[in-house]
């Protein structure tokens, strides 16, 4: 019985999402970028780092769909390969910051004695402007894709932790948690089975937004030259490389900028749609 209800609830969520045209558009945009990132070598026949100095700064044409850069590399090919790194960073940060945030939030929300310190740490971490904290962390850890993911996860984990903590404070007072405790269920199991499972949806919503912020932040770091290695193509490094040629070869920064915007916008639309679908009360109010 419970199983059937569970399935129908998820089906309800899916159909509620699909009824919003904008959410469908957002999901399609993300699917296109994800597809291009995964199947990059099959989508383009160029090598992302193949130099062709003779063809440098060629405007978009039939061969080079989005033109070439200052070394004669194909911008479309680099765009597709850069999407791999940019999306990997976004997804990696969404995942890792959720893990850190869940642990922190559960500790703070569940154990009263830890709550004071956990809440203050969250407040303190949120006091740092995200880019400033991220570049300082990358400066300390060193600039690689993995370190950028770690740095941005530290930056955004407090956002997840705050939500997990708030949900924990509410749920742990509910009767079924009390009942479980009275039955002698271990604290560990209560946290996993009763608390965490009931806050999956707000975490997913927040992680979607973190995905979007992380993509913007990674682009910002790469643009500043303090993120991943400048030779690694990401949408941010492409814009940074193109800024010197903006007057003669505007196409070098157009496509990466539009790609970041499209992905971040799509993620925000999907995040908003998810939140509304999961919490019908909010969707009516807003």
């Amino acid at each position, binding site marked *: 019985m419970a199983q059937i209800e569970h399935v129908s609830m998820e089906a309800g969520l899916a159909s509620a999402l699909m009824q919003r045209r904008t959410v469908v558009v957002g999901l399609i945009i993300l699917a296109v970028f994800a597809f291009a990132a995964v199947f990059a070598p099959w989508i383009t026949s160029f090598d992302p780092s193949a130099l062709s100095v003779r063809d440098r700064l060629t405007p978009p044409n039939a061969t080079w769909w989005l033109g070439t850069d200052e070394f004669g590399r194909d911008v479309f090919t680099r765009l597709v390969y850069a999407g791999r790194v940019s999306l990997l960073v976004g997804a990696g940060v969404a995942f890792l910051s959720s893990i850190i945030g869940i642990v922190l939030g559960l500790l703070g929300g569940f154990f009263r004695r830890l709550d004071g310190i956990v809440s*203050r*740490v969250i*407040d*303190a*971490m*949120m*006091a*740092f*402007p*995200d*880019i*400033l*904290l991220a*570049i*300082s*962390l*990358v*400066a*300390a*850890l*060193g600039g690689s894709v993995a370190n950028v993911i770690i740095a941005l996860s530290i930056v955004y984990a407090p956002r997840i932790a705050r939500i997990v903590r708030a949900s924990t404070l509410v749920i742990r007072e509910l009767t079924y948690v009390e009942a479980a405790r009275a039955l002698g269920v271990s604290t560990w199991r209560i946290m996993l089975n009763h608390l965490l499972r009931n806050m999956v949806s707000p975490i997913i919503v927040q992680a979607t937004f973190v995905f*979007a912020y992380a993509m*913007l932040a990674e*682009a*910002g770091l790469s*643009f*500043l*030259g*303090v993120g991943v290695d400048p030779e690694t193509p990401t949408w*941010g490094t492409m*814009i940074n490389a193109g*800024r010197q040629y*903006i*007057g003669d070869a*505007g196409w070098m*920064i157009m496509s990466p*900028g539009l790609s*970041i*915007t499209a992905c*971040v*916008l799509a993620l*925000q*639309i999907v995040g*908003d749609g998810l939140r509304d679908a999961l919490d019908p009360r909010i969707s009516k*109010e*807003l």
Partner: protein
Amino acid sequence: MLSYIARRFAGMVVVMFIVLTVVFIIVRLAPGDPAALMLGPDATPEEAQLLRDRLGLNRPIHVQYVAFLAQVVSGDLGTSLFFNRPVTEILSARAEPTVFLSLFSLVIAITIALPIGLVSAYKRGSVFDQTSVSLAMLAASIPSFWTGLLFQQYLATGAGWFPVAGYGGPDAGFFERMRHLVLPSIVLGIVNSALILRFSRAAMLDVLSDDFVRTARSKGMSEWRVVLRHALKNAMIPIITVVGLTFALLISGAVVTERVFNLPGIGSLVVGAVLRRDYPTIQGALIVVAGLYVLINFLVDMLYLAIDPRVKY
């Protein structure tokens, strides 16, 4: 009320203490010998030893931590390794463009977002509302440095309406320096208007459905007065909160925007310090910026006490 202020103040001090601890840890996260990292590969072991002595890196970690706290509390942020001058001095020399850029862009963001947010809430569900909400989402999705580069190229280099970059040179007067901040402030203002628009719309929606608004209407008060005197006044509290929270966002935006327009502000200073591994400067900038954020949000809370008679703790 006094005890609330005291409690809130104590909370602020604790958060500041954790901020300092976090900064202390970040700077010491770097693997290997920080002195060797700072000096680069050409340094001799003697030079590294000298720098370690100067920075106190030879002492045990807890002694370093206590010394660091004592130093910061006494108002000393250390000495920049690159400029060889006190970090506080460098920060104050670089503060002007960042402070004015943040202020101007905040004013621009509020000027754009507040009226649109209010009208949106008032005409909820209309074409105007849907358009402005969609545009706000778009503005929050565009990387600010990309908008900055495009504006710079087309409005400054191309059309010549604004100075392209820089801060007017060493002899520029105050007005000339501010003129260089106009375009960067517009870029940053547009980016930051997104959040304020969403918040002011939500706050106004909340208030418009309240009982006292209905009462005011049923008294036959003009719609204009209902919205401005009753609804807006009450919607101001959440709006002020978000303006306080926008500070961190503003500084993040300023860091990147300063690099686009080549402004000699705190953002450029930190990025330069990261590239030069000038840890005392990074550390000092983090402390000052996070400290300001904590202080501003404390003041915002105090402002509630002043403007909202219902808030009595």
